[in-house]
């Protein structure tokens, strides 16, 4: 499985308000052609702030539920 997932931003729903850019704690999001883009994916902490703050529900983060690996348990 891809270990470096990024939030998905829907252009259909995005209103270009820029709140996600303002509130992103790591400045991973920038406005390009009037729409937010995760311009610095290496900075994205997958914290979910952008999803929480977006008033249009345009940003989604995916999650997978899994057990603790045996390495982490020891």
């Amino acid at each position: 499985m891809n270990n470096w997932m990024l939030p998905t931003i829907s252009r259909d729903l995005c209103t270009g308000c820029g709140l996600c850019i303002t509130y992103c704690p790591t400045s991973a999001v920038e406005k390009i052609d009037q729409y937010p883009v995760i311009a610095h994916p290496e900075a994205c902490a997958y914290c979910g702030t952008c999803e929480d703050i977006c008033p249009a529900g345009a940003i989604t983060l995916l999650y997978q539920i899994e057990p603790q690996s045996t390495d982490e348990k020891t």
Partner: protein
Amino acid sequence: MTGLLRLHGWLKKTTKQKPSKLDIFYEGGTITPSTPSHFQNVALFADLQSAVLQKLDAVAWLKTYHDAQIIMLEGEQKAPVFFIVEGTARAFRANPEGREQTLIHLHSGDGFNIPTAFSRETSAAATVIAVGTVKLLGISPQDFRRVVSETPEIALAVLGNLSDKLRHFTTMTHDLSLRSVRGRLAKFILAQYQGKNPKVRRWTQEEIAAQIGTVREVVSRTLRAFVRDNLIEMKRQHIIVLDPEGLKNETEV
């Protein structure tokens, strides 16, 4: 009228996401009875002989839907009885604001809208949409009722399936009425952790909310509470179960 308002609210939300959701894409056509029957892969008929199932072949058609396309709308009159040959679909109801409650995920071998063939109420009870590409066998409610009434083996198989669904919805009613949101979320996480859902998959918080009967913000807050309580750990897209016993205790509160 209430049904129309609900439909309006849901359409307002979903058509903004993907304008193509309302396109019904038809592929295929009527099927010819064959050996083995096309219905042999439908779980509820798996134990029946092909000769018996060919009665269903004679009145069925094959249809393909693509991701997020609407297979059936809540309130739709005399919608067909469907059986999934391949793929996954999601059944849900929505309120006028577009908030959804997922009723059930349907997989290969499942049937839905079966009650329409036997009930005086002929409107579809829920909206069903494709999750990925879905291939379905469809039968008109009248034809399905006729074949079932003529074929006791098929009737018994249908009764068994409806009984299973009744049990599923009884459990859902109990969960929604008598479990807290923490309990419902804990139960959901445990079910994924224990592999009780057939396919390992990724979920958005919105999807989890629709599954457990709440809203995304509450899911987000409750997950953070579970992290604080050392029940789970969240590492980017991974929700790691640290304390399954603790989660089980949450479901019993």
